[in-house]
């Protein structure tokens, strides 16, 4: 077992696996725990998780690549995801996205050279009453406009 993973993570994983009637059911939550610690699920992480759950690495990759929240490449420290589904588009998601591209100097799917920000678009976040909305890592921000974006960005150190 790779020493790169913290004892805390291993303990959490063990606890998680114990909750499911079948070990492999813990795959998604385990992937998310590992991702939280390492940043993304690369080939090394696939092997590590496969070993824990008695699966083939291919089986882990098959699942990891299906879900948008499992990241196969490293992201910036702050992952900004702008909802561009219907309600948010009606209320200005395109302007929000353009402003962010401008402020960060990157396009969708790119990371700033200092590794601080990654910009993505995302499908409906289930927060349409506060459209347009976006997520910074796991935090929701609603009714965003240029001023709100400036404030949010200023708060991210």
């Amino acid at each position, binding site marked *: 077992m790779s020493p790169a993973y913290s004892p805390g993570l291993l303990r959490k994983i063990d606890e998680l696996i114990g909750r499911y009637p079948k070990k492999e059911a813990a795959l998604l939550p385990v992937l998310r725990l590992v991702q939280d610690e390492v940043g993304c699920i690369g080939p090394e992480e696939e092997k590590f998780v496969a070993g824990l759950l008695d699966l083939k690495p291919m089986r882990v990759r098959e699942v990891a690549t299906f879900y948008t929240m499992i990241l196969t490449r490293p992201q910036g420290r702050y992952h900004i995801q702008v909802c561009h589904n219907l*309600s948010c588009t009606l209320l200005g998601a395109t302007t929000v996205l353009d402003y962010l591209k401008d402020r960060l100097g990157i396009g969708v799917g790119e990371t700033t050279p200092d590794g601080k920000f990654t910009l993505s678009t*995302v*499908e*409906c*976040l*289930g927060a349409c009453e506060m459209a347009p909305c976006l997520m910074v890592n*796991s935090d929701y921000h609603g009714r965003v406009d240029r001023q709100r974006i400036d404030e949010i960005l200023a708060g991210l150190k």
Partner: protein
Amino acid sequence: MATKIISGDFGVENLFEIRTYLQRGGYEAVKKALPRMKPAEILEEVKKANLRGRGGAGFPAGVKWGFVPQNVPRPKYLCVNADEGEPGTFKDRYIMSHHPHLLIEGIILASYAVGIHTAFIYIRGEYEAVARRLEGAVQEAQREGYLGKNILGTGFDLEVIVHRGAGAYICGEETALLESLEGKRGHPRLKPPFPASIGLFGCPTVINNVETLSNVPFIVLHGAESFLKQGLPKDGGTRIFSVSGMVKKPGIYELPLGTKLVTLIYEFAGGMMDGKKLKAVIPGGMSAPILRADEIDLPLDFDSLVEAGSMLGSAAVIVIDEETSMLEVLKTMARFYFHESCGQCTPCRVGTSWIYKIVTRMVAGEGRKEDLDTIIDLASNIMGKTLCPMGDAAAMPILSLCRKFREELAKNLAP
């Protein structure tokens, strides 16, 4: 003022804490049912209430529970569908963050009625804060003896596990949800067998939406009659409408089934924003066929919407104004279904990708004369030709948009 079965207490401070919930009469249905009612009595009451599924399909919950074979040697499971992903829908997020114990109480009653001892709440991955709140509520309920071993001394055991998804619209489809919960890609299963007989880990499984289960405590406590008094004789109870788009007051509105769409938009949601003019309404989440402004004088219930050529779906109402380009709406829809198709069935995988390519061409000003007809042809060939309802969910709104707004969309085609 009609009774709000679920959201009446949403304004109460710290409602999510078990202490507040108990003060407001919480867990009374469990206290009434577990010691004194037989599981079959609860099942009968829910059947009598004709509680139809609030996730989108509208299948009666009691009937679903009744399909689960009893006296099988295998465990039975309850899966709570909290994968709220239908664009425009956010009501379950409100229920889970404001009223998590109401959902847990519904879970206990459903599990007791069907003889289930393990329940999973499959919550969409983006609802991180909501999932934490649910986990907190589960722990509180355990501590107070409403979950765990020997609930309230009745000998009934129930464990609830909060399971987070990881970003896949398709996992809201019940069999994809099961696959995902088993640690696989969210590929819907061929039915039959239905989950009631062969579901999670091959065992009998009930899958219910968050809002559906949150209605159960009221039914058990006040009886099916009281439930049916809300709403319509055939469609009992209320729905929580998620209203978004170009209205003054977007948000959730719990109203009796049968409330008119025009009333919801103009009275409850405050009418159009900034004096804008109404152009169209999507009445049941993005997958529901679109209605023109002149078609909204109709009651919001399962059957009336079907008669009007649409569906009540997840009761998410998206309001579109005159200034919005229907080509932009079409592009958003086409991209969404292309992105979310799980890839298992060819008509959906390839069809949604071709439709998106054509719409992109139209947006770029390179629409060909035949493009709208090609989209209609492609969408018609997705309809009814896929394993799961997502094929229809993609085809229906695209077809309705191309037909009802053909004139406007045709302006983007070569003459």
